[in-house]
């Protein structure tokens, strides 16, 4: 269960304070596929950063699996991020000089998984997202956008996280590939019982998720 209570994140912009998220509260049950929608600047990415323990809120709390992220030290947050959260970015953000397989192995290395185990699991994950054999040994530059996003999804799943946060995962893809990626995330949330929260502009995609949260000017306007 993800439980967000009265979450506030304030940024300083010159002499004024801007509330990127303003007293947001919501709950997402385990294994649910949820979406966050809203206009640019509505606070979606900030909320995702807070949920992903990449940033600390100004006030409020985020409890994931009974653990309050706001009470963790920086070092604990790194460990938590490594083991409990997976990220999928709009621009894939794969390491360009590593192969697909090595990219998926990377988070497991940070989690101190043995080399043999991470190689086996990375290969399995890549097969699970539809990348087989020689494509696993290709560098990102030799893969299509859809394939790169599949690698990114496999990387997000590497340490069997409780939560996957996806920021516009289909934003750089054509509609057919986007649909394929969305279906893949949907399937994984079911098969792995992983909670997935997707930030998207695409209302059609949001409509297919289990729950949708709409943000406007940092406030949660509808659930």
């Amino acid at each position, binding site marked *: 269960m993800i439980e967000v209570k009265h979450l506030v994140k304030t940024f300083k912009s010159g002499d004024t304070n801007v509330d990127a998220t303003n007293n947001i509260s919501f709950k997402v049950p385990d294994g649910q596929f949820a979406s966050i929608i809203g206009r640019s600047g509505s606070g979606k*990415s*900030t909320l*995702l*950063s807070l949920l*992903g323990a*990449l*940033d600390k809120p100004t006030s409020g709390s985020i409890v994931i699996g009974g653990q309050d992220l706001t009470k963790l030290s920086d*070092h604990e947050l*790194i*460990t938590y*991020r*490594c*083991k409990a959260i*997976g*990220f999928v*970015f*709009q*621009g894939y*953000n794969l*390491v*360009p*000089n*590593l192969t697909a397989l*090595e990219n998926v*192995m*990377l*988070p497991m*290395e*940070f*989690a101190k998984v043995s080399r043999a185990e991470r190689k086996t699991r990375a290969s399995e994950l890549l097969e699970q997202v539809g990348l087989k054999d020689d494509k696993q040994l290709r560098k990102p530059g030799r893969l299509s956008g859809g394939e790169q996003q599949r690698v990114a999804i496999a*990387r*997000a799943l590497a*340490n069997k996280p409780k939560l996957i946060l996806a*920021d*516009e995962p289909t934003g750089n893809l054509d509609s057919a590939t986007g649909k394929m990626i969305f279906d893949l995330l949907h399937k994984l949330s079911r098969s792995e019982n992983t909670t997935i929260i997707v930030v998207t502009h695409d209302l059609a995609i949001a409509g297919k998720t289990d729950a949708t949260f709409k943000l406007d000017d940092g406030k949660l306007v509808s659930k």
Partner: protein
Amino acid sequence: MNVFTRGIRNAFRNGIRTLSIVAILGLSIGLSLTMLVANKAVGNKIATVKSSIGNTISIAPAGVQGFEGGGNPLTQASVDTLKSLAHVSSISESINDRLTSSGDSSNTNLVSSIDAGSLGQRFGREGGFGGGFGGGASGSTAGQAQTFTIPVTATGVSDTSQYAGSAVKLTSGSQIDGTADKPVALIGKDLATKNNLTVGSTFTAYGSAITVSGIFDTGTSFSNNAVIFSLPTLQRLSSQVGDITSATATVDSISNMDSVTAAVKSKLGSTADVTSSKDQAANAIAPLDSVKTISVFSLVGAVVAGAVIILLTMVMVVRERKREIGVTKAIGGSNLSIISQFMVEALTLTILGAVVGLVIGVIGGQPVTKLLVSNSTTSATTTATPGQRGSFGGGSGFGGGQSTGGGGITRRGGFGGALGRNSAVKGISNIKTQVGPGILLDGFGAAIFIALVGSALAAGMIAKVRPSEVMRAE
């Protein structure tokens, strides 16, 4: 794949950039190593010069310089008192005279092995000495034009193992005892050849038959036109019994040089000019000291330049990969692991640069050192024409002294002192460089230092990258 392999692979992400950085770093590290090689070679040379000439004190009669000037010779009795001074290891004494086979003052049948040439003739015309020995008009007026013959130098030494500042190198025959009065002598190679003398042959000096015990070679025409007697033999033959024209005191440690020099001056008073080789050594090695200083500054400059190159490179790389760093942090990478990866990358580039630099250092070490040393010592050294040493044969003559004995062949101090130092000074530019394991370790140590310093700022930048910024940039 781990931090090390990723760091190493990252170093080769951009081939052209890697090549450029390695080339520039190679030049920088190469210059550092070259300077290190020069510094060590010059340091060794300075140590050699100091150890060879640094612990002797030259004593000459006051007012005498070579065969010039005037004054009275030292007495053997007064010089012998120096042996009792604290820290004096040994005293070697010598007396000098000249043998000539022409004119009224002829005192030998030996023919000089050196032709007077135009220099000798000029010196002979300009000075009383030339007239006295060369032209046959003993004590003749300076400036008279007469045929001048270079005399043969006769030296009586208490320690016959040393001549011209180094161990006597016998090409044939055997040594003589410097303390025994016997009609035997060592003669220079050129003089022996000129007079068809071999070991066992005899020649005449001061009306006595002298047997050739050995033939020596100093490597110079001037010094090979000489005869070495034992000290008492030459004192007796040249009617200078009890006289000393130069002495060299050897001190047990260079740290006692100042106190012993003061004690010798105090003992001999105004009758002697006392010169510490410490001062002369300092003058001799002054050009080398400047080369050493230059090499240290260049070394530091090159290392700093290398560090700045790698620093700027790593700063550029971190800026370029800011997003990648943010993403790596987002997926669980700690600051330590990311910084380590970048340090390995910097180290890889630097080690490659060090390998290139090592090649440059090995190839460039010797010529650069020679160039630096020769430029610095040009003003300190002179090249002698064969057969000429100082102002021999001319100049201002003997002056008013009672004895014809000067202070030695060249300058103050005679054979055992000044000539030895002169040889050492001449050898200063002859420096051999060596690239041993020590230099290699120093080179790689410098490379690691450069990599660490160069990646320090990058590490600070990495630590400041916030992964949330990556999300926001998306």
